[in-house]
C-alpha cells in the first residue's frame, strides 16, 4: 500500500482510490502497419524492473488519468504528472 499524489485533486490519497491503467505513451501504429507491428502494439509491453512510466486513474476520486513515474521494486514515486505537462514540454 502506498500513497499517490493526484495532480488534479492536489492531495495525497491512498492507493485504494486508484486503478492501475497500464504502461504510458504506447504509440498506436499507422493503419497500414504489418500484423507483427499491430501484435506488438496490442500485446507486448516493456516490463522493466526499476523505473517505470505508467498510467494511473483516480477511479474513486476525480476519475482522471495521469502519469506516474514509479520504481516498481521499491515503490518510490519519482514524479506524478498530467498528460498536458508532457505536451507543454514537447
Amino acid at each position: 500500500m502506498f500513497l499517490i499524489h493526484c495532480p488534479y485533486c492536489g492531495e495525497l490519497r491512498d492507493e485504494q482510490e486508484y486503478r492501475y491503467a497500464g504502461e504510458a505513451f504506447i504509440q498506436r501504429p499507422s493503419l497500414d502497419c504489418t500484423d507483427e507491428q499491430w501484435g506488438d502494439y496490442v500485446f507486448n509491453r516493456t516490463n522493466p524492473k526499476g523505473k517505470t512510466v505508467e498510467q494511473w486513474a483516480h477511479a474513486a476520486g476525480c476519475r482522471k488519468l495521469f502519469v506516474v513515474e514509479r520504481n516498481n521494486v521499491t515503490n518510490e514515486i519519482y514524479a506524478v504528472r498530467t498528460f498536458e505537462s508532457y505536451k507543454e514540454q514537447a
Partner: protein
Amino acid sequence: MAKFETALEGHDFNALAGNGFQVSEERNYGYVVLRIRPNTAGAAEALTQLGIQLPNALGITGALDTKLVKWLSPDEYLITLPLSQKDAFIKDAKAALHGIFAAVVDNSGGYSLLKLSGEHVYEVLAKNCVYDCSKFLSEGKVISTLFSKAAAVIYRIDANNVYLMVRWSFADYVFQALAISSREFR
C-alpha cells in the same frame, strides 16, 4: 402518481441513533451534474446568468437550500438543489448553456444522500474510509473517495454535519456498514 420512495425506504434510522452518532436520509434534493471547463468560451456569462459560481478543486460554493455546487473533477461539478426547483433549473441551464461545450445531466434518481452527525462521526468514518476525514475534511470541502468499498462523495458545509452521498444501489450496503461501525456508540 406513484409513491415517492428512496432506496432506503423502510430502513430504521432510529436503530442507528446513539448518544454520539446519528444518521438521517436527506430525501428532498435533486442532483444535477454539470460538465464544463471553467475556461470555456462563453461559460462565465452563462454561469453568472444561472447564479452559479464554479468552486476550485475540492471546493464548494452556494447553499443547500438554493444550489450547492461541488467540485468533482476539473470539468465536472455536482449541483445539489431542492427537488422542487430541479426541473426549472435544468431547463434554465440548458437554455443558458446552449451552444457552449457543456452538458447538464439530471442524476436525481441515481443517488442517496445521508446526513451524519454527532461527536463520534469521525470515528465511524475512520472505520470505513481510507481518507482521514477528521484531519483533512474541513468545512466547505468535498472529497470523492471510498466508503468501505463503495465510491462516495463526502462533504461538509457546516460544523456539525457530514454529508455522505452514494449511488442508490450502494445505499443499503452503506447503511449496513454504518450500522456495524456505529454499534459501539449506541
